[in-house]
């Protein structure tokens, strides 16, 4: 096991796993607190359109998915602000339409057959330096936004009506939360896949919810719990030669089960 750490791709995978875990813990806490899990699920699926676009046009994959995810997030921010009662319908719409566009664009791309599995379960062992820079930059951006506007984001998330009365720009902060969520989804898809995004954004937060009474402690604890899941999952994946994304999901789900049983007993 120790000798594995000397391989560069393992080192990259570990760094990426830790970065994405903390990003997911922080952003996942915001998403759960704002009750936007379904919305972000829609954005994550819509991002597949960006994968199709990237393959079809030859632009970098990150750029294509970021573009699609951020556009989907902006669209959903607009809908949520303008037509609150219709958000569910539009989430379903971007969810399906984004994927359909992606599939058609992949069909139209000659000679190249994208591996849908790596989109669903990620390819953490194929993370390169560029990916790491992108993740680190996003992590720094998130910390920066929180350092400056944590209290505003807290107010908007807990009680947007009162936040507006106190002069906080609710629409702006809501849009910022959605854009950061979209970018987080993009890095997480690359590393751990679409299915795990939703799991990583919710399971650690579900556990942290019981342990924390403030948003920032929930962000930190979720990030820590997510990191634990990712590292254990990666170790299992390496030792038994299994798909890494699926290993991480199962570790997270089993931990949640044990946590709930332990909760019941105490």
């Amino acid at each position: 096991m120790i000798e594995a750490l000397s391989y560069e791709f393992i080192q990259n995978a570990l760094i990426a796993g830790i970065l994405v875990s903390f990003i997911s813990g922080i952003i996942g806490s915001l998403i759960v607190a704002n009750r936007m899990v379904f919305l972000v699920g829609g954005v994550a699926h819509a991002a597949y359109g960006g994968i199709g676009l990237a393959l079809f046009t030859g632009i970098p994959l990150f750029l294509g998915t970021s573009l699609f995810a951020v556009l989907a997030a902006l669209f959903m921010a607009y809908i949520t602000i303008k037509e609150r009662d219709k958000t569910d319908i539009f989430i379903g719409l971007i969810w399906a339409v984004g994927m359909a566009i992606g599939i058609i664009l992949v069909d139209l791309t000659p000679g190249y057959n994208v591996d849908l599995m790596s989109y669903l379960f990620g390819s953490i062992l194929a993370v390169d330096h560029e990916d790491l820079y992108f993740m680190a930059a996003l992590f720094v951006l998130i910390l920066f936004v929180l350092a400056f506007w944590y209290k505003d984001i807290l107010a908007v998330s807990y009680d947007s009506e009162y936040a507006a009365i106190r002069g906080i720009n609710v629409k702006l902060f809501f849009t910022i939360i959605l854009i950061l969520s979209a970018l987080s989804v993009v890095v997480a898809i690359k590393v751990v896949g679409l299915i795990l995004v939703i799991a990583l954004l919710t399971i650690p937060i579900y556990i942290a919810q019981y342990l924390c009474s403030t948003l920032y402690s929930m962000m930190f604890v979720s990030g820590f719990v997510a990191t634990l899941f990712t590292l254990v999952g990666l170790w299992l994946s390496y030792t038994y030669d299994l798909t890494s994304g699926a290993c991480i999901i199962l570790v997270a789900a089993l931990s949640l089960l044990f946590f709930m049983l332990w909760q019941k007993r105490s």
Partner: protein
Amino acid sequence: MGSGPKILSQWHKLLQNNNDNPTIIDIKHLSYAIKKEEILKDINLEVKQKDFLVIIGPNGGGKSTLLKLILGIYPSKSGTISIHYADATNKLDIIGYVPQNTNINLNFPIKVIEVVMMGFASKKTFFGYAKEDLDLANKLLEQVGMQKYAHQKIGSLSGGQRQRVMIARALFAHPKILILDEPTSSIDVEGQAKIYDLLQELNKEITIIVVSHDLSVILNYATKVAHINKKLSFHDMSSFESSFDTQKEHICEVELLEMLGKIK
């Protein structure tokens, strides 16, 4: 010709009076409809700086709607609402608000004291809160009898306890106008008296507008009463005084207004 100076002095007195108690909210010909359904019709209301205005009226009469129009939560489409306050850059900065519904987001990870300090800070800090803000929040929590719960999750409180916290939150931003929508509907009798006494104390400096179905609030604290049922009728309590027998508890609002000669 001797009446000249008298008129002048009367006029002067009137002016002084007005300077003493200037109009702070002026609503003219305000109507509001949701999906063609008329909810408020031609509301005219002038609130003075030292008023303790109690708004009464039946369920669905439009009380909360009027407050939300004043607060800008709902956009006003016909009529005008002007708020006059000398050094207010953003007119909402001077308003404190306690919503009728305090059951929002009960699973949210936020402590009572964070709720109190929400959306207002005396100075900008990273992550944490300034000491003077924490002190003020603790003092306000003490005033509403909630200091013991400062570090509990908001969702773990009872309905009445949460209302107390929301009152502290409204006071935290140093408002010049305090708008409260049935703020004590789930608070016990003792707590209510304490809170209304606090409001009366505050009323020496700031304007209070409160929706309440509670007769004793009207009789003991109000300087003006507005009855809203789509339309607004109004009474100044200064001419009413305390000639009224408060022991007779079963008198309802409408009877009261009949006595005030405002409803036929």
